[in-house]
């Protein structure tokens, strides 16, 4: 591995970690869509700041972009408060408007601006190790500038989360309660918007505006599926983010494709795998549990059916193993299998093809009936 490759991977990892940290709160607050908007509209801040300073590396670009991000959120919320448009529509209106103005400005003045559309959409992480993009100080080379910036953003984000951890937690979980105990959720919201905006701007350079949202939402959404504590979710979100970065880089290397695109693809794949296979909340385990519950309920239903017809004239007909499915209107094969399970678990016994309750089966049936009555 060359030093250039290492630097690109380090930057990819740093970007993913910075995004994953914000992402946790965006996912929990159902604000992922807003991060999509922010990551696009920061462009107008960059463009305007560039026109004012004429310098593509000026720190004012960061300030301009962050301001644009906050402005986006205020505009969305303002529109929403008028009561004329809903939140989703407000986001859908504000962000294309601001983004398209930025795109227009770039395309009109693109002759003398080093901003091109490709870079805006997917970033230019591959250019990271270039000599013109290095941080040099007193004759020493401190690595790529964007890596230094990204590490600074990570430190700010981690600082924000550690300092305001309890405020972030309570205002995300229960905003009304949070306000009642003196933590106005609005200030925390604003802090979060600031942090998302700065992160989006800094990441923008590396991965572009479209993929920022993937790095914010996917690792956090993946971690959400298998963690049950906020602090652990934050840690896992970062680990998954880094995994996306490294695996994405090598995928791009072998496919000779866009690094940012590959990172987002890996993020999607990791989410997909977790979505299906997560131990508690994954789709398969949810299905499995539903199946077991369904089966248990069917067994209880059968036992209740047997109690209702126990000792009646129709018992021979109603509880006959061969005609049972006609009465319950179940699939014949399934009925057999449930009946077999009842016998196997000593809840019923079979006498001349007629199912008879055992004492154990009777108890279960009566308990099931009890629960059924309580529910109604």
């Amino acid at each position, binding site marked *: 591995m060359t030093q250039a490759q290492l630097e690109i991977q380090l930057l990819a990892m740093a970007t993913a970690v910075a995004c994953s940290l914000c992402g946790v709160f965006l996912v929990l607050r159902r604000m992922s869509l807003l991060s999509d908007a922010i990551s696009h509209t920061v462009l107008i801040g960059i463009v305007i700041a560039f026109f004012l300073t004429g310098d593509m590396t000026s720190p004012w670009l960061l300030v301009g972009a962050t301001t644009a991000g906050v402005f986006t959120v205020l505009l969305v919320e303002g529109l929403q408060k008028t009561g004329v448009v809903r939140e989703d529509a407000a986001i859908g209106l504000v962000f294309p408007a601001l983004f398209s103005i930025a795109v227009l400005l770039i395309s009109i003045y693109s002759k003398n601006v080093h901003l091109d559309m490709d870079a805006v959409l997917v970033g230019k992480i591959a250019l990271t190790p270039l000599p013109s993009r290095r941080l040099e100080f007193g004759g020493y080379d401190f690595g790529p500038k964007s890596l230094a910036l990204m590490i600074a953003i990570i430190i700010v984000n981690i600082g924000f989360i550690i300092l305001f951890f309890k405020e972030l937690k309570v205002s995300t*979980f229960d905003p*009304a309660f949070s306000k009642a105990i003196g933590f106005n959720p609005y200030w925390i919201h604003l802090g979060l918007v600031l942090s998302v905006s700065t992160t989006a701007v800094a990441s923008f350079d590396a991965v572009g505006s479209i993929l920022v949202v993937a790095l914010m939402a996917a690792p956090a959404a993946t971690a*959400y599926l298998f963690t049950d504590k906020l602090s652990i979710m934050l840690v896992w979100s970062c680990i998954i983010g880094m995994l996306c970065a490294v695996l994405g880089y090598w995928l791009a290397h072998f496919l000779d494709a866009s690094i940012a695109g590959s990172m987002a693809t890996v993020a999607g794949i990791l989410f997909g795998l977790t979505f299906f296979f997560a131990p508690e909340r994954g789709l398969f385990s949810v299905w499995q549990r539903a199946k077991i519950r369904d089966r248990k309920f069917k067994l209880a239903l059968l036992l209740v059916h047997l109690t209702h017809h126990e000792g009646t004239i129709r018992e021979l007909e109603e509880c006959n193993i061969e005609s049972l499915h006609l009465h319950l209107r179940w699939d014949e094969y399934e009925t057999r299998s449930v009946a077999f399970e009842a016998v196997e678990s000593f809840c019923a016994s079979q006498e001349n093809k007629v199912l008879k309750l055992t004492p154990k089966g009777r108890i279960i049936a009566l308990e099931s009936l009890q629960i059924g009555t309580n529910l109604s």
Partner: protein
Amino acid sequence: MTGLNDKKLELALEINDLTVSYKDKPVLWDIDLEIPQGALVGIVGPNGAGKTTLIKSILGLLKPVAGSAKILGLEIDQGIKKIAYVPQRGSVDWDFPATVFDVVQMGTYGKLGWLRRPGSKEKKLTKDALEKVGMLELAHRQISQLSGGQQQRVFLARALVQHAEIYLMDEPFQGVDSTTEQSIVELLRELRNQGATALVVHHDLQTVKDYFDWVVLLNVRKIAAGPVSEVFTETNLKLAFGSRVSLGE
């Protein structure tokens, strides 16, 4: 001596001409209400009567278009520190990554203020509250794995941790099992006996007489408020609910 008398005279809540509206549709119309300290108060009224709105206005979560509320003689922003709030169980996302302990510990945040983190004292308070509601064994369980009754106990414990003087509870009996309902009532009585005041939004008219000393009958306007024996009458109930409701006596 006079100091003691003053304290006795202080009302838990004093609400004057409170009107809250959604756009131009009033949800609460000019409410005057005085709640004495140490009362267990049921807030009763039909759907859309403004019960939750009343609680949220006292907490300062909603801005009234007219009128005011005072808490133990203080303006809301000061008085709110004396209140513990139990929101409706359905108002939060129980899939949030937190344990029972995490949620109950949130009750200690208010006294801590910004930036300070919970320490061993807060952990102890949290454990005590969990023990009181019988949830200590489940302290490390994820909140999405709780039953409705257990979720309500968690919310109650979070309020108990605050050691407040006034408890505002929004439908704590909604969808809980009868054991939980009984233990909540027990806890409310214990709080009352220690001098606290509790306002509880309640739905079941049959149990009002058993559970509460005071009742507020609400239907956008205040229909009646006072000791249950004086106010909880067939006539008042008909005024609040319309003619279909009866006590079934």
